[in-house]
């Protein structure tokens, strides 16, 4: 039985990890909120400041997820990343489009795909496993759990970080799960019902 061993939820302007509220703030611009999370829980990763908002959000959610869950027992190819969202990279696409009339920004261009967030997470943690990023109107939990289950059950991966990473303008939501074949951490059963329960919490 595969197991949810850790999970992180980041929403305006609250952060929950494994059921514990880490931060609960009144309204603040998203950019400032993400920067405060970086200062509080990460830091010392210069590349963070160059990321677009979607990548910052997914990167921070994963950073919090793995803070007390070392992945040292895995080979680089053992950890899969599977995410989904609604707005793809539209927020950055719009910003990039605005630069095209002058000199197109290379730094913005590289973030005009949503799966760049999987790349940023992979670079940070040296993951080289399977990865996918789906775009759909809503978080399709049965599809996401079935996809992750299959990766683990067919030994395509031994661990899977999966979930919903959505951001467009000031709206954002990241709900990510560490699913493993072995149990540790919060050790919740990995099922669509359990993911739905945590997503709605």
């Amino acid at each position, binding site marked *: 039985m595969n197991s949810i061993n850790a999970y992180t939820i980041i929403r305006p302007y609250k952060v929950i990890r494994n059921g514990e509220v880490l931060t609960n703030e009144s309204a603040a611009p998203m950019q400032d909120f993400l920067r405060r999370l970086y200062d509080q829980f990460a830091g010392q990763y*210069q590349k963070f*400041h160059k990321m677009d908002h979607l990548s910052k959000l997914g990167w921070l959610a994963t950073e919090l997820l793995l803070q007390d869950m070392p992945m040292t027992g895995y080979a680089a190819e053992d950890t899969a990343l599977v995410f989904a969202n609604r707005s793809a990279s539209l927020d950055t696409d719009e910003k990039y489009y605005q630069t095209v009339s002058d000199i197109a920004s290379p730094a913005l261009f590289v973030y005009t795909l949503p799966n760049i967030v999987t790349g940023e997470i992979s670079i940070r943690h040296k993951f080289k496993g399977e990865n996918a990023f789906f775009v759909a109107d809503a978080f399709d939990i049965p599809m996401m759990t079935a996809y992750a289950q299959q990766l683990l059950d067919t030994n395509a991966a031994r661990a899977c970080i999966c979930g919903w990473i959505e951001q467009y303008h000031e709206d954002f939501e990241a709900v990510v799960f560490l699913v493993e074949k072995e149990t540790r951490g919060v050790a919740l059963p990995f099922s669509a019902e359990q993911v739905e329960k945590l997503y709605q919490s």
Partner: protein
Amino acid sequence: MEKLMADLKAQIIEQLNLQEVKPEDIGDDQPLFKDGLGLDSIDALELIVLLQQHYRIRMANPEDGPKIFHSVRTMAEFITANQPA
């Protein structure tokens, strides 16, 4: 030259979004890439854009990039030698 190098440091920090770096952290002769300031290939493109936007200089030969962008001093020397009258 000193004024130009000081301006360049501030422009590099702004253009490359180096939010945890201060101008005084960048040495005049410190390598900008790899073990120096740690810039990457996308940053190199941003430096080319910086030259165009701030100094109206277009690089004729991209192969000269490693020499020109070696340090703040080499960038300043290139700008001084190539700035339009």
